[in-house]
């Protein structure tokens, strides 16, 4: 029996995959010249934009699309046949988030690759492969598809990290990332197999129904905890956070941005799908675990960020802390309902992506001049390059969650609102204290931008970086003025 495939539903990842193949072919057949590198970047960018166009078109139809469904003959009676690939509001928001971030990251890559130290064809191919995974993952509705998509997100990133050849730090980072990721996959697969063994289904909708029957069985609890732990690695939640700083610092800056936004968004998408879609009835089991993970993650991330001198390491720990904020609303899913909790988490994630990418774009600009990329290299940036200085200052203020960075402020309000409504007062207090700790390092960094520099560095021109920075900051500004946009997007 042949499968009916809805090609419109899978058009976004398909477009990316075809572009990846095209890039690889072009890289082989085009002459190796600087212009080719730029051309490959533009082809990649076009692929991402086409994919984004498909996502928008899917959003226009307003229907929920599903494909790779269990044939009706096999599904048996009772309810619609479960599908493995579903395009609904959640899928569209996360796919849109990933692809919009990808536009910024591709532009950053073009700057990074312009020097010629890194092979452009491989880079863009691997980047597109990661994106295929990241777009497929939020649409996955069965455990196998979920794991495969997550691996597709992770595997190319090891290679991307190591592409800076003959660089000790990069190789170390790649090995670290590889080991951590493989271990986390193994842990998660074990959890998945336990869940499958107990319920006899891999489809999330089936899981939600079947797992009620086995509530309270210790094996199910172990399975849930292992799956949460597996995703915990991907989003760098405590106690699986230790790899973040070294890997971010060793990897090229665009890869660090990719890890902190796309890879993290995928991890959260998977976590939300497993917890809120497949196991909503078990919220009593995983809710407290997530609450404690969230509190520990934000605290550890912020405390570790306090002592950093390197800009990328600081952003690495800050993104760990921000993971904690995204996790927090999920902890109250049981009390306020999946829709409100997931809405708050995704809203935070969307705003976080914009402000974090803006910061990384400026970091890349400075990294091109100051190799060590320490915080002191940012002294006086606001005078040397007012646009870059103000953009970074705005993004940092956003990340700290203060006006004029209203996007960051409202993102925190969304999360606080969910927690307070859910009645987790202690988590709200922990997050309040963490917001203040976080402010310290953001404020100190922001103040450096406006203090006169002892030695002045001239920034190297980076034409592709300005649109990247402009896009991220413009989105952050729009979200600041009209946060309702984010809520409309994530209303799900």
């Amino acid at each position, binding site marked *: 029996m042949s499968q009916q495939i809805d090609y419109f539903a899978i058009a976004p990842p398909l477009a990316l995959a075809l572009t990846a193949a095209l890039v690889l072919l072009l890289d082989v057949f085009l002459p190796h010249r600087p212009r080719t590198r730029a051309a490959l970047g533009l082809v990649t960018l076009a692929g991402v934009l086409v994919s984004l166009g498909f996502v928008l078109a899917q959003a226009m139809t307003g229907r929920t699309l599903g494909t790779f469904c269990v044939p009706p003959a096999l599904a048996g009676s009772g309810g619609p046949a479960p599908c493995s690939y579903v395009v609904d509001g959640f899928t569209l928001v996360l796919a849109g988030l990933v692809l919009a971030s990808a536009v910024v990251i591709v532009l950053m890559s073009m700057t990074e690759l312009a020097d010629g130290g890194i092979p452009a064809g491989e880079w863009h191919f691997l980047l597109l492969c990661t994106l295929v995974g990241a777009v497929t993952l939020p649409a996955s509705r069965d455990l196998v598809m979920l794991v495969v998509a997550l691996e597709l997100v992770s595997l190319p990133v090891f290679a991307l990290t190591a592409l800076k050849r003959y660089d000790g730090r990069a190789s170390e980072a790649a090995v670290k990332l590889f080991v951590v990721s493989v271990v986390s996959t193994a842990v998660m697969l074990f959890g998945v197999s336990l869940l499958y063994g107990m319920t006899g289904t891999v489809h999330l909708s089936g899981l939600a129904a079947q797992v009620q029957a086995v509530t309270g069985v210790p094996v199910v609890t172990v399975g849930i905890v292992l799956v949460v732990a597996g995703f915990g690695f991907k989003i760098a939640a405590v106690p699986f956070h230790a790899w973040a700083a070294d890997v971010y610092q060793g990897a090229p800056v665009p890869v660090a941005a990719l890890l902190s936004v796309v890879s993290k968004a995928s991890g959260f998408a998977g976590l939300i799908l497993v917890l809120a879609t497949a196991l909503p009835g078990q919220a009593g089991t995983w809710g407290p675990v997530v609450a404690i993970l969230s509190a520990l993650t934000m605290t550890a991330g912020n405390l570790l960020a306090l002592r950093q001198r390197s800009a990328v390491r600081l952003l690495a720990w800050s993104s760990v802390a921000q993971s904690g904020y995204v996790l927090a609303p999920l902890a109250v899913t049981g009390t306020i309902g999946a829709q409100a909790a997931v809405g708050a988490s995704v809203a935070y994630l969307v705003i976080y992506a914009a402000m974090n990418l803006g910061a990384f774009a400026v970091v890349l600009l400075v990294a091109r001049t100051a190799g060590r990329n320490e915080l002191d290299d940012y002294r006086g940036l606001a005078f040397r390059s007012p646009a870059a200085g103000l953009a970074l200052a705005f993004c940092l203020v956003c990340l700290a969650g203060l006006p004029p960075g209203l996007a960051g402020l409202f993102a925190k309000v*969304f999360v606080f609102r969910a927690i307070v409504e859910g009645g987790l007062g202690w988590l709200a207090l922990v997050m309040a204290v963490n917001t203040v700790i976080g402010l310290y390092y953001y404020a100190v960094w922001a103040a450096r931008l406006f203090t006169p520099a002892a030695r002045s560095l001239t920034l190297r021109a980076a034409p592709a970086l300005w649109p990247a920075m402009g896009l991220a900051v413009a989105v952050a500004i729009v979200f600041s003025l009209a946060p309702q946009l984010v809520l409309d997007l994530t*209303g799900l």
Partner: protein
Amino acid sequence: MTGTGWLPVALPVALLAVPLLGALGLVVLPHVLRPVLRAYGLVLSGVTLALAALLVATFDYERPASPQFELDVPWIPGLGLRLHLGIDGISLPLVALTALLTFLCFGYLSWGRARAGEFLRARPRALVFTLLVLEVGMIGTFLALDLLLFFVFFEIVLVPMYFLIGIWGGEGRRAASIKFILYTLLGSVVMLLGLLLIWAQTGTFDIEALAAAHGSGMARSVQILAFVAIGIGLAVKTPMWPLHTWLPDAHTEAPTTGSVLLAGVLLKMGTYGFARIAIPVLPEGALAVAPWLGALAVVGIVYGSLACLAQRDLKRMIAYSSVGHMGFVLLGFATLTPTGINGALFANVAHGLITGLLFFLAGAIKDRYHTADMTALGGGLLATLPRLGSVLTFAAVASLGLPGLAGFWGEMLALLGAFRPADGLPRGLFLTYMVIGGLGAVLTAAYFLVMLSRVTHGRPPPLPAEAEAEAVAEPRVVESLAARPVATLAHRDVRPYELLAWTPLVALILLFGLWPGLLLSLTTPAVHTLLGALP
């Protein structure tokens, strides 16, 4: 609504839009505006002041208890956040005070050739920008009638004030600015939790509706929890002992304009929050927490006064005096009586005027002597700089609460409120507070008089710093130095631009001191409304 024209809605929007657009203009057209920066800031704050004056003129004094000039449009429906602005008898004086003090600060900066020019030279565009954004936040806080909107404006002032202290401040500016922003943010985040708790219980952020409901729909325990959370946020800003420790550092390191706005307006945002949100929205919580609030308030009064007695630095002393004065304001709120709260609101405005003036004076002294250390200043200010000395004496006497000046009425009414607190509050306890507060008032008089005796009276010492500075500039008159100080200092007395900045403050201190009814008639009906729910 009074009248149906465009004016009622346009006024509050314009009050925010003028400084905000002005600040944006500096970002968009930096080069066009560079030559006219001084005039630019002055004109924009002047327009804002004119709008505030128009507001004062068109305010319907028949109904000061209900919000006027209301604007209510949705901003973020998903969050229930509305752009709800309005003005009543409680906020009107504070809006006017903010507009006035900001204008005077710009006047002080723009007209002062000699030193303010120096000050403005260090990144003038950024300074004007910072002050304008600060003004948006300050005015917005007093206009907001939506809990979340109030919080947003409350937060807006943090970043400009951080940069104001951190860039244009004194020696220890870095530590002081960080301490300021971390401390206040901690307070406001805890306050946000309290506001969200109210929302979770009642489902609305609308202050008007919440105040009209008088806490119905919220259990007593929830009200207490929310009051404590909101109270902590407001108390950090006020500041209330023991959450005041950021204040002396921030004041000492801030530039003159920063100190003036910090003491004159920012502290008022904390106390205003009590009158606007904490007490009317959470009456039962207020009743339960009031004895504690009163206790911390009187500790603050005594502690502030004793700390003042121990200070050597003039700016630091004035900063600690704010802790004491804010103690009176909080004591007034804690009584939960119309008398006490009226007194608190009056003391609020009076403190803004008087301490604003005191910080202007301290800045002027620091300019001339390059130190604010009282022992280093020596004495005899009245002999060397008679006009400056007189204004300083006037401000100090006003601050210590001499009858006939603005400082008196607020403290008197606050203590009177404590004499007969609201039903349900332990009267004996509040009588004790009254006695301790009264002692604090005596101590206040003591430290101001000690300060005056150290600075303004006595024999003027030679001024080595001045003499050296002059000697470098004019080497040929070195030999005649000994005979010169008095003569050369004469032209260093109050300058015209300083006089322009200070005269309105002096006049208002006199006006409110002699005619307190002017302010009290505005606040009394509003206070009765906000206390409506209390037994």
